């Protein structure tokens, strides 16, 4: 074991692999009560790099917990550290996906729409 060449790791202590895939595979948005606020599945466009999500009428947009599912070995920037303010609908939040080999970076825009009455 000791003779093996050390595998490269990045600044977060995560393994850098050979994978170049870089995309979001699933997106979830939780409210203050940790229950989903989506009315239906989020639409993820991996070409346009957008996540379109419709939330229930009356959702508190200032207190939402986003959850991204990424392709194997990829990571997210900025990291999700807690509840996030999504209330500025005109300026959607952006998150970058970084591939497993840390060479590809794609920035996704999260467009939140509130269910109309």
């Amino acid at each position, binding site marked *: 074991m000791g003779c093996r060449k050390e595998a490269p790791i990045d600044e977060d202590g995560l393994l850098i692999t050979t994978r170049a895939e870089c995309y979001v595979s699933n997106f979830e948005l939780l409210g*203050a*009560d940790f229950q989903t606020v989506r009315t239906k599945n989020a639409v993820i466009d991996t070409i346009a790099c957008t996540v379109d999500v419709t939330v*229930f009428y*009356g959702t*508190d947009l*200032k*207190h939402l917990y986003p959850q991204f599912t990424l392709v194997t070995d990829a990571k997210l920037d900025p990291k999700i550290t807690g509840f996030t*303010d999504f209330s500025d609908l005109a300026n959607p939040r952006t998150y970058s996906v970084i591939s497993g080999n840390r060479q590809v970076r794609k920035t996704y825009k999260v467009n939140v729409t509130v*269910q109309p*009455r």
Partner: protein
Amino acid sequence: MKSYIMSLLGLCLLVTACKDKEYAIPEAKNELQNDCIKRTLGPNVAGLNIEFAYAIALPAAKGKIVSAQVEASIAGEATTYLEHRSYYTNGSGEDVGIQIGDPAVNEGNTTKVNFTKDTNAVTLRYFYVIPKSAQGKEVRFTFSAKSSNGETVSYAMGPYKISKMDMVLDLPVKNAEASFISVADMAVYTEKDVPANADKIDLVYLYRAITGISFNHALVSPGANAEYLPDITLPPGLNRVTKVRKTWNLRDFHLARLQYGIYIDDLDFEQLDMTGSPDYVINLKSEAGAWVETADGRYRAYIYMNKVEDSKKSATISMKRYTLK
């Protein structure tokens, strides 16, 4: 060779070291003895019980138990009592009480039972009903017993911190009728009572079945955007903007009285950060809840939805409240 002898010697030592002492049945103490456990869990809220089980025994040859008493550092409510019955469980699993003395008498801080039956061993339950005057203080208990041969024993319990929280259970709320909730008074008012209490109304309960969206059971501040108070004309003077945050899976044991051992304690209210919280919550389901902070910053509360009924446009709520200042 030398090391071989040494290791052999070591082995011998190990073998002898492992020998056990002969077991002897412990000898019972030949005197009056007592023991006590606290049975209730969770924060000690005024109005609720702190329950103890106090066990007393002495050998039959020495005499019998004459009396048992509990002294609390702060007098409990008048309903505080020490059980005057000893219970056993019968074949059907029911607890059957056998009277061993006269019903307990409360005198100041002391609750006492005088024994009337020849009793050598007994476990008595003690129910201390927490008085409002003890809120934020600590309470201690001294359990003691006397036997006919003049022996006395005592057992100290505590200190126990008494919570600063107030609690109210099972307030019925109904759309357009009993729908005005006051955290300050921990009460629900009808429109008729509102003018006299207008400055104390923190939330309005309403039920709306609106096609296309999930509005249903809601708690909305009188000062919230009118969009969340559809088809309501509020009585004049209602304008408080109360912060509310929806919660799920927080079925406080005191409020819900279900099988979940979760308790909201003083600390939860002290550490609660309601910054940026909205002034309404909609689509509240049964067993959901909401954290509340009043507009004047005086109170924080947790409102639990015990039951919601769509057809009757009503709900039953319970509330724990903490006074900040």
